[in-house]
């Protein structure tokens, strides 16, 4: 049994790798080693679409799917969410080191120099 997240990752990676709009059939073919049904891939694609990661457009008779943004953009976006949640706002997550003040840097440098 393959996890849902793992399948979604495989499909989005196929879209990232191609860089062009793909039909559900061509996505399925690019994942040939997995022996997936086209309907399964369609389900995954619509889930990705509802998450706002994939855009669907009508191309003649078929629908094509395209990644909204690249891997690097999404990573930068996540990172921004992580780094912006500093200290006293509604934090969605807790960071190991929150914000670092100038006093902190001076004190930590001194501590390291003493060693």
């Amino acid at each position: 049994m393959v996890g849902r997240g793992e399948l979604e990752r495989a499909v989005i990676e196929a879209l990232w790798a191609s860089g062009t709009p793909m039909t559900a059939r061509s996505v399925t073919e690019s994942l040939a080693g997995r022996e997936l049904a086209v309907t399964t891939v369609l389900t995954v694609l619509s889930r990705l679409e509802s998450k706002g990661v994939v855009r669907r457009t009508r191309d003649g008779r078929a629908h094509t799917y395209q990644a909204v943004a690249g891997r690097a953009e999404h990573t930068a976006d996540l990172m921004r969410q992580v780094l912006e949640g500093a200290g006293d706002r509604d934090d969605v997550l807790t960071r190991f080191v929150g914000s670092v003040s100038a006093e902190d840097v001076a004190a930590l440098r001194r501590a390291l120099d003493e060693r």
Partner: protein
Amino acid sequence: MPTAAALAAALALTSLLLASPVSAALARSTWGWRAPRPALVLWQAVCLSAGVSAVGAGVALAVEPLGDDVGSGVRTWFRNVVDGHPFRGQTPAEIAVGAASSAIALVLFAVLLRSLALTLRRRRAHRALLVLLTDSCPATAVDRADLLAGVRILDHRTAVAYSLPGWHSQVVLSAGLLDLLTRDELAAVISHERAHIRSRHDLLVLPFQAWGSALGRLPGVRQAAVAVGELAEMLADDIAVRGTDPRVLARALAKVALAMSPATSPAGAPATSPAGAPAAPAVVPVGAPPAASSVPGPVVSARVTRLLDRRRPPRWQVAAVYALAVVLLCVPVVLLLQSWR
């Protein structure tokens, strides 16, 4: 026997004292840095007691003609509501005070619910992306695969570690952190994050953050949120170093903090993402003014210092703080049980 007005005044005074001078003093105090758990318990007691007193003061005034004490007055009022005469026996002033205290209670509660809903939604969105972008263990870290089991690795050069609390909790480390820290230091960071998740520190902090961002203009509320957040970090530090050398976590903290400050390592802060990526510029100013201004003091170095100097307050002081928390909770309860006739 006290009059209802005197009781209400005592409750209002309790609430004001706790919400402002007591909160401010607690936020300034560094005693809790040596004993974060009792300090967090005290904060919860202060917050709850202030809220109950504020609402209770208004209720006592509003139901004064309806009974001998708050309990019987409220019961009579409910009976009146059921009978269809909600304001029977009350003067307009009492009705207004009752409405005002109901409004306060409602606002406090609504802010909390709103913040909870918002947090859950943002967390879900974050996790959805996270699942697509992270591997369980990258090829560059196979030597540490045992350590990183169940941890997600985000492919980014900025050194960060964080945890996403909740039902589907997650510990996330960045590739930059894997490069920066040794094996032992990584293990310490991971236990720190797991401590947050296991002890549900997010629930301890949530009310303070919710009220801090919604009612932040009231004096002391925001400082309370910051102080409680710091104490939760220190508590997680303490849990993480149980049975290990605390100097390892201290070193990890110092390394990550120095890597985050742009002044120290100009190459460390910027993102690896291509120059054209729209979101990239926002990543750069990590230790820059907005973050620095919201933090009063050198919090990270304080965490490092207390890990290196493990002196703890004497047991009687800890017991006294717990006792104080119980007393604070009892004050409004005892006042609300007084009869005025």
